[in-house]
C-alpha cells in the first residue's frame, strides 16, 4: 500500500498547516511555500500541495487520504469527506454584504422586480443561503473581487468570504448578514479513514490535542 497521502492547501492556510504538522512530528522540511515541487516525501506521509478548491476533490475521490482545508471550501464544494478535527486557525466568515445606503433601495427593488442580483465567487453557498431564507435571487458568478460588483452595478448584493472586513469597508460595503463561519479542518477520505484507521488515528489524536492546546 502507498504511504498516507496528505494534501495541503496552497495559500493562506499553508504556513499554519505546516506549523501544525511540524508540531505533531511530521517532517515537512521538503515543502517550500511557493516552490515548484508539489509532491513531497515526508517519511511515512507523502505531502501534496494543491489549490484549496481542488483539495476537497482530491480527498473525495481518494487521490489524497487526508488534507487540511478550510471549511469554506468544503461548504462550497459539497464534497463528501469526513471532517475529523476543527484546527481553529484560518478563521473567516461567509457574509452577505451591500452598500450601506443601498439596503432600502434594494429592498424596494426586490418588492418591484421580485428578485435581487447577488454577485459571488461562491454560488453554491449563496444559493443555499437565500433558498433557506426564501429570498429570490439571481446568482452572478464572478471569478474574483465580488466586492466591486455593487460599485459597478453588476449586482445589488454580494456573498463573500471575509477575515477582517477591511476589503469590504474599503469598497464601501457593510455586512448585512452572516451566513457561516469557517476555520481550517482536518479531513479524510471516508474509505481511507475506515480502512487505514490505524495509521490515521494517531494523526487525528495529535492534531486534536494540538488544536485543543492552542
Amino acid at each position, binding site marked *: 500500500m502507498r504511504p498516507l497521502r496528505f494534501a495541503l492547501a496552497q495559500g493562506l492556510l499553508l504556513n499554519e498547516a505546516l506549523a501544525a504538522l511540524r508540531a505533531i512530528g511530521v517532517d515537512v522540511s521538503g515543502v517550500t511555500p511557493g516552490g515548484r515541487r508539489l509532491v513531497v516525501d515526508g517519511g511515512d506521509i507523502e505531502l501534496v500541495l494543491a489549490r484549496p478548491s481542488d483539495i476537497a476533490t482530491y480527498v473525495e475521490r*481518494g487521490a489524497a487520504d487526508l488534507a487540511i482545508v478550510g471549511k469554506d471550501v468544503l461548504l462550497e464544494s459539497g464534497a463528501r469527506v469526513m471532517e475529523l478535527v476543527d484546527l481553529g486557525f484560518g478563521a473567516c466568515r461567509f457574509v452577505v454584504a451591500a452598500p450601506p445606503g443601498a439596503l432600502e433601495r434594494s429592498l424596494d427593488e426586490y418588492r418591484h422586480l421580485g428578485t435581487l442580483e447577488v454577485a459571488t465567487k461562491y454560488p453554491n453557498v449563496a444559493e443555499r443561503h437565500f433558498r433557506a431564507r426564501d429570498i429570490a435571487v439571481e446568482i452572478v458568478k464572478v471569478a474574483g473581487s465580488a466586492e466591486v460588483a455593487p460599485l459597478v452595478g453588476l449586482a445589488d448584493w454580494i456573498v463573500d468570504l471575509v477575515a477582517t472586513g477591511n476589503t469590504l469597508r474599503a469598497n464601501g460595503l457593510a455586512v448585512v448578514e452572516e451566513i457561516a463561519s469557517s476555520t481550517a479542518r482536518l479531513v479524510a477520505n471516508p*474509505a481511507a479513514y475506515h480502512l487505514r484507521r490505524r495509521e490515521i488515528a494517531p494523526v487525528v489524536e495529535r492534531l486534536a490535542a494540538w488544536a485543543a492546546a492552542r
Partner: protein
Amino acid sequence: MNQQSPIGPPRGFRDILPTEARELGVIEQTLAETFADSGFTPLHPPLLEYGAADSAKRRRMQFLDSDGSLVALRPDLTTSVARLVGGRYGDMTGVLRLSYVAPVFREEPAMSGGSREILQAGVELVGGEGALADAEILALLVESLERCGLPVCESTVQVGNIRLVRGLFAGIPEAARVEVVDALRQGEIAGALSRTREAGMPLDELERASRALTGGAGGIDGAEAAELCRVIELARERWPGRLERWGVPNPALVPALPYYTGIVFEAIHPDAGVIASGGRYDLLIGAFGTPRPAIGFAIDVLQLHRALFADAWRPRSQRPLLLLRASADERATMRCAAALRAGGMAVALGDVAERAGRAVIEAEVIDERRVKLADGRVAEARALGAEIDS
C-alpha cells in the same frame, strides 16, 4: 451551436464494452448463484419510482412524467423493495429472502467524474431479527465477495452500529442528538463533537465519544463493543476453523443513508473504495405498510470489478471460440458447423473482430465432417470439442 449529435452518452453514464461486459457477466452470475445458495430469490423492482419535492434528497435523478407527476429513476433498491414488501406482502408475516442485480441512479455534480448509473447486486432479508440474522447477512456479504475472487482480509469489512452511536450520545437532549447523528452521517465528526460539547455533555463522556469516533482500533469498550464483536465472531463461524480473521468493529461507520437502525457494515478496498454496504433497517418497511424488521446489503458491482481488476483478477476461462472459415460449398459449411456444435464447440462463421478477451482457434471447412486447423492438421468436426477439452 454544434449541429452534430454528440457521440458519447450524457455525463455520468458510459458505454460498457464487450470485454468489461463479459467480466461483469461472470461477476453477476457468481453473485446471483451465491444469493440463491442461501435461499434468496431474485425480483425486479421498476426503474421508475415516484419522486419527491424534498430538496434534501437532491441526489435523485427526477423528471416530469407525461401526466405531470414527478418521477425519479430509483436511487436505491432497498427503498423500492421496502415499498414492494409493504404494499404486496402486507399480510404475510413469514420471512422473505429477496435479491436483485440491477442499476440505480444518483445525481452527481457536473465535472466531478462521478458516475450517475450504479450497478447493484444485493439481498434483503425481511423478517429476520437478532444477532443470527445479522451474522448470516454479514457472512453472506463476505462469501459473495470471496466467491467472486476478492481476497477478504481483516480490514476489508468494517462493522458499526447506529444504536451504539446513538448510545454514545445518550446523555444529551433528543433534539441535539438528532443533529449530532445527522452531522455524523455527513461525515462531520468535528462538527458533531462540538455540537455535543455545546449541548452540555460531561467531559468524560465526550472524551469517550471522541475516542470511539476518532481513536485507533480499540477505541470503544464496554457492552457496545462486545455486541459488535459478538456479531462479527458469530459471522466468522460461517467458516469454522478458518484461520484468517476478517471484520473490524468500527463505531465511526455511519452511512449517509438515513434508514439504518442497527448494525451497519461496509466492504472497502484500497483501490476501489467502498464496494459494498448494508445494514439493518427495521423502520423503513413501516413507512410503506406493516412494520417489519429487515437487513440487507448491496454490492456496487462496477466497484467490485474495479477492485478485482486492481488485484489482477481475470474471469475464469471459457471454452475457446472456433472461428470457422467457410468453403465454397455453403451447405457443407453449415453442416460442418453443426457437427462442431454437436461435439460441444462454440462456433462463429467467419471472423469476430471484438473478441472481448475470449480465446479463439481458427479452422477452415474441408467438407461437412472435417476441418483444417491453423497448424495444417485435419480434424474430425464432431470430435474436436472433446479433443480441445482434453
